[in-house]
């Protein structure tokens, strides 16, 4: 197990560095300057600013300089939000996105799995068909269609929840629900198909034949392989949901990491963008690792291979 973890961690470092270098390069070669204002910048000032922020020299030099800074734990200064380091900005905004994301993730699994199990138990009957359609409905409606409509109805139509902002509990309700709902449908469908497929498998028939009770059959024999597809989906889902949805943060005016990312991209704020991408990338790799690890625990066939 330990060798597996170390091997995976070692092999992800080059991936992270490549992604980071590519991102840095892309933002740097995009037209427009992070120092651009309405007035033309005179070359001396520009050269001074570039020198100060470590953006002088050729692109490879800049990338290598940035890379070595990152390896020393320095993500650089924001070029747009002057006087704040990227680490400060991330430390301030990431927890908000993480909180919102973990609520939404819990909601997605907490609603989706029971829905799927309920439908699987009524396979090919009316409730099953209905639930399938409802799941398809929720997964087809993107968050940025859902969110404005939700605000329209539940903030301005019936003033139940505040339409925007951050800090109080009611302000969390709409954004987390809007973020979770599309994934509820996916989770329900995965659970349903996983359970239906497993209950038809040979080893379940064998277990039933040797006289295992129905309860043990479902909980001990069927559940483990049935959640495999869900686990494979939940890993990347957690990464994307935890880093926050750009649109949700935009609509509900939540000062999370997504908002800083969008403003960074618009302002060619190269250190801020690369810093956020680093976080995204690390989270994604981390959850992929967790997924693989969970899969190995749940599925003896995969454990035997590695």
């Amino acid at each position: 197990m330990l060798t597996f973890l170390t091997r995976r961690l070692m092999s992800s470092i080059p991936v992270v560095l490549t992604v980071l270098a590519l991102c840095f390069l892309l933002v740097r070669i995009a037209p427009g300057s992070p120092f651009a204002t309405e007035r033309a910048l005179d070359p001396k000032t520009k050269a001074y600013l570039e020198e100060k922020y470590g953006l002088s020299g050729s692109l490879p030099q800049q990338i290598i300089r940035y890379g070595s800074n990152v390896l020393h734990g320095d993500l650089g200064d924001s070029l747009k939000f002057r006087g704040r380091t990227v680490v400060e900005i991330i430390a301030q905004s990431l927890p908000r996105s993480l909180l919102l994301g973990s609520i939404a993730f819990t909601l997605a699994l907490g609603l989706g799995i029971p829905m799927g199990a309920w439908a699987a138990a009524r396979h090919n009957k009316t409730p099953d068909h209905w639930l399938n359609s409802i799941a398809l409905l929720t997964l087809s409606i993107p968050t940025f269609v859902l969110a404005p409509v939700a605000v329209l109805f539940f903030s301005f139509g019936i003033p139940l929840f505040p339409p925007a902002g951050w800090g109080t509990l009611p302000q969390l309700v709409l954004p987390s629900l809007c973020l979770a709902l599309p994934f509820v449908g996916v989770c329900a469908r995965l659970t349903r198909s996983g359970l239906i497929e497993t209950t038809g498998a040979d080893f379940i028939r064998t277990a039933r034949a040797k006289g295992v009770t129905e309860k043990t059959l479902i909980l001990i024999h069927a559940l483990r392989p049935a959640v495999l597809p869900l686990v494979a989906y939940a890993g990347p889902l957690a990464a994307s949901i935890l880093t926050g949805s750009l649109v949700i943060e935009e609509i509900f005016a939540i000062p999370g990491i997504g908002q800083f990312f969008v403003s960074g991209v618009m302002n060619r704020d190269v250190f801020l963008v690369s810093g956020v991408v680093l976080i995204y990338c690390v989270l994604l790799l981390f959850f992929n690792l967790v997924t693989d690890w969970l899969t190995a625990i749940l599925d003896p066939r995969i454990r035997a291979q590695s």
Partner: protein
Amino acid sequence: MKTRLILFFLLTVLVASIAGPWLSPYDLSDLSNLRLDSPSKTHWFGTDLHGRDLLTRLLYGGRISLLVGFVGATVSLFVGVTYGLVAGYLGGRIDNAMMRLVDILYALPRIVLVIVLISLFDLKLKALLDHTWFASLAPHARLLLLFMGLGLVEWLTLARIVRAQVLSIKERPFVLSARLIGQTTPTILFRQILPQVLPTVLTYLTLALPAVILEESFLSFLGLGVQAPLASWGTLLADGTALLNPIQSPWWCVLFPALVLATTLLLLNFLGDQLRQSRK
């Protein structure tokens, strides 16, 4: 729902978007003094902040959104299928290197890629188009790049799916015999293997189409995609959302774009679902 019914509705949306703007008495950017007028006999879906007819704008927006979907999905189809075929068939080191590239592109945020693509090539493409007989397209260079860009970020999943299929297909007897009689690699790839993966690819198309429409709406929503005076469903929804405030909320500016967008995406997803089930 029956597949025919879904196709009928989708066709209605398509025809309405293509023919609607001609039938409407208003123009995309006809301004009037009736600002934020609620739905009435003269303006069925109401008017927006500048007094423009919302229904007309939605129909025009449909043209853009659907066009983006088709072009983007087609681009992703060509790139993804070719990439997956080559990687899967050649295998070994080439396959490894090609799939690592896919992994890396997966980890890069898509909006960075699209923005860089648009801003890097916007003026170049405009200049290039000016000298050809496509000169009339030059003002829309940005839009063309958006189409391409969305297609080019959407192909990754398809490449993985196709590659996985090719891995198993290439060991089958008919491919081995094709190689034995001396067919060249491109012939084997496109004449022997491609027809085998085509059903999967076409099913995927029904998923890629809504995905691209969604991506465009999302970019436009953030103010990065389609620019005024043009409109897409995404920009209309974004405009409507910006108008919401506690004093007055013009519900029609949010609800109608949201309904149109959600219905179209839902229909496309239903279609994809039906196709996948019928293949099982």
